[in-house]
Structure formats: C-alpha cells, structure tokens
C-alpha cells in the first residue's frame, strides 16, 4: 500500500517566479505609455494657487498660457517682473494675440471654435497681469477660460 502514501511535505515549495518578468513588463509598458516627458519647457516659476471648487480641463481643446516671474536661471537676463509664456518662449502682452492665434491653429479644426484657455499662473503674480491677459482674450473673442489650480484650499494650512 505504499503506492498511495504521499510524499513527505516537510518544507514549503518555492514560489514560482517565472511569471514575474511578465508582470513587471506589463507594468513597465503601462508607465511607458502613460509617461509624458515634459513637452513644455517652463521658463517661468509656476506654482499654482490652491482651490477646491474645481472642474476638470478638457485637454484636447485647450490652449495654455503660463505666467509668473522668470525662473531662477533666466532672472539675470529677464528680471523679476511677471512674464507671459506661450509655447516655448516668452510673449509680450502686445504679441499675445498673435501667439494665441498660432496656438489655436495647432488644435483639431473641429474644436477650434470651442477653444478653452487654460491659465497657469504663479500664485505670487500680480492680478494686473492676469487682467491684461483677460482683456486681450476678450478682444480675441476667446471667452472660455479656466484658472488651473492645485488641490486644497488656501484657508487651511
């Protein structure tokens, strides 16, 4: 009857790790696909203020405007006054219209009428700069805008 006596299972069998590379590769591919290597080279300090009554931005129909004082390494050249950045370069308030038109043309044609301007403004900027931008936007008839904020609330700290 020794035929049916089981093998002694004294020690635990080792966990099979053969599928570990597969799992890791799967994760790897996920992150590779999701990763966006910075496409905007930020030239300005950009720390968003906090707010909690927020809506989500629809990215396919938005044009970004950055504003804030120049980053530390550009301060020698451009000073510490608030500056506007669209795309990869600084834009003067008088050139804003032109730069925005150019940015709008890069969107998909059917979404160009529904364009939404995303304002990424540093929290230590003066409101005057923002209202200059808003005035230009009104003249361009791009009336939908969204102030990008960070999560949280300035009240509780």
């Amino acid at each position, binding site marked *: 009857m020794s035929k049916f006596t089981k093998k002694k299972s004294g020690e635990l069998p080792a966990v099979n*790790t053969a599928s*570990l*590379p597969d799992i*890791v*590769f799967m*994760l*790897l591919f996920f*992150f*590779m696909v*999701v*990763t*966006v*290597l910075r496409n905007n080279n930020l030239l300005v300090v950009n720390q968003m*203020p*906090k*707010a*909690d*009554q*927020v*809506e*989500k*931005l629809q*990215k396919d129909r938005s044009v970004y405007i950055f504003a804030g004082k120049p980053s530390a390494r550009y301060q020698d050249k451009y000073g510490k006054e608030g500056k506007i950045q669209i795309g990869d370069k600084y834009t003067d308030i008088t050139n804003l219209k032109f730069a925005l038109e150019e940015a709008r043309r890069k969107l998909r044609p059917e979404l160009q009428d529904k364009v*939404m301007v*995303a*304002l990424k*403004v*540093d*929290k*230590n*900027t*003066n*409101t*005057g700069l*923002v*209202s200059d931008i*808003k005035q230009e*936007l*009104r*003249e361009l*008839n791009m*009336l*939908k*805008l*969204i*102030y*990008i*904020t960070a*999560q949280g*609330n*300035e*009240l509780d700290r």
Partner: protein
Amino acid sequence: MARRATPEVNAGSMADIAFLLLIFFLVTTTIEKDKGIARQLPPIEPPTETPPLIKEKNLFIVNVNKSDQLLVEDELMDLKDLRAAAIEFLDNGGAPAGSPEHCPHCKGRRSTSSSDNPDKAVISVQNDRLTSYKMYISVQNELVAAYNFLRNRESERLYGWEFTEMKKNLDEGNFSGNEDALQSKLENIQKLFPLKLSEAEPKKSGL
C-alpha cells in the same frame, strides 16, 4: 569541426532589467490632472450701450486691496467669513411674497435691505492691480463655493442628489442613464441660482 550547441541565454536577470526600467518610468511619470475654476468672460460691449442699472441692495461688493485685504460691503472681513456672507446675501430673498420677484426657494433672512432674489443678486469683485493671484483665486473659490452650496441644497431638495457631484459625473462620463434629462435638470438648478459674478476692471495701483 564538430558543431557545438549554442548555449542558452540566461534570462535570469531580465526581471532586474525590467525593474530598473519600471522604476525609472515610475519616477518620471507625472500623470497630469489639470483642474481649475472655469469662467466665461463677458464679450466686449459696444460703447454706446448704457450699463444696466442695479439697485444698491442687489449688489454685493467685494473689494481686494493691494495688500490682500478684503473689504466686503464696506466692512473689513476675513477670507474665511466670505463664503458665509455670500451665501447669506444670495439666499436672502428680500422681495415680498406675492410680488413677481418673490423667491420661494430662498431660506434666508428676507431682509429688505439685502438682495431681492438670486436672479437679481450680483456679486461684484474689484481687484487692485497689485493683488496677488493667490488671493484672487481664493476669493473666486469662496464665491463659487457659496454658489455650489446653494445649488447643492436645491438639487438635494428637488432631485435627491448633489449638484456638484452629478455635474462631475457628467463631465467625466461616469454617468449612465439619460444624459439629456440630467443636463436639463442641472440647468434648472443653475437657473435657480444663476452665477452672477461681475469683475470690474482693476484699479490702477497706488490710487
């Protein structure tokens, strides 16, 4: 020459290499989630048009000076009290019962010296050019919060769900059901408390 069998490649370190790459991408990934306060700018009006007259009591003036202090209805106020003050103003419903402007869903004090109804009530924000953007956003945030609070209260009463939550579900495509019906319900509630935030041109600094 005798043919030698090619030795098998040792794949034992594959997992290590993959881990290395995985960690690199994990660290560099920033899943961008841009959120913010959406706003519609007023179109530029032809200069001939006379601005509409708004009664003093229907106007809630929030003034922010260059050192980020708040002046609400001519009184100094802390930012944390702004939300409650705005809610009280919007929800006042001062028009007497029976008049066409009576607001049946308002639960405020019904004082005759404050707003007639939410449709008439206008919040006006005036900034100095030197106000910090942080303060500006905080003020906007508090005022939107006041509107959201009142809208949530009404949608809770009428339909049994929260306005902000349903709007978020609709925007993110998490809503299963009749989207048009929900949209019209949302608009109904927006009509009960329409967002009337006016922004004056900021004053020149130093004045």
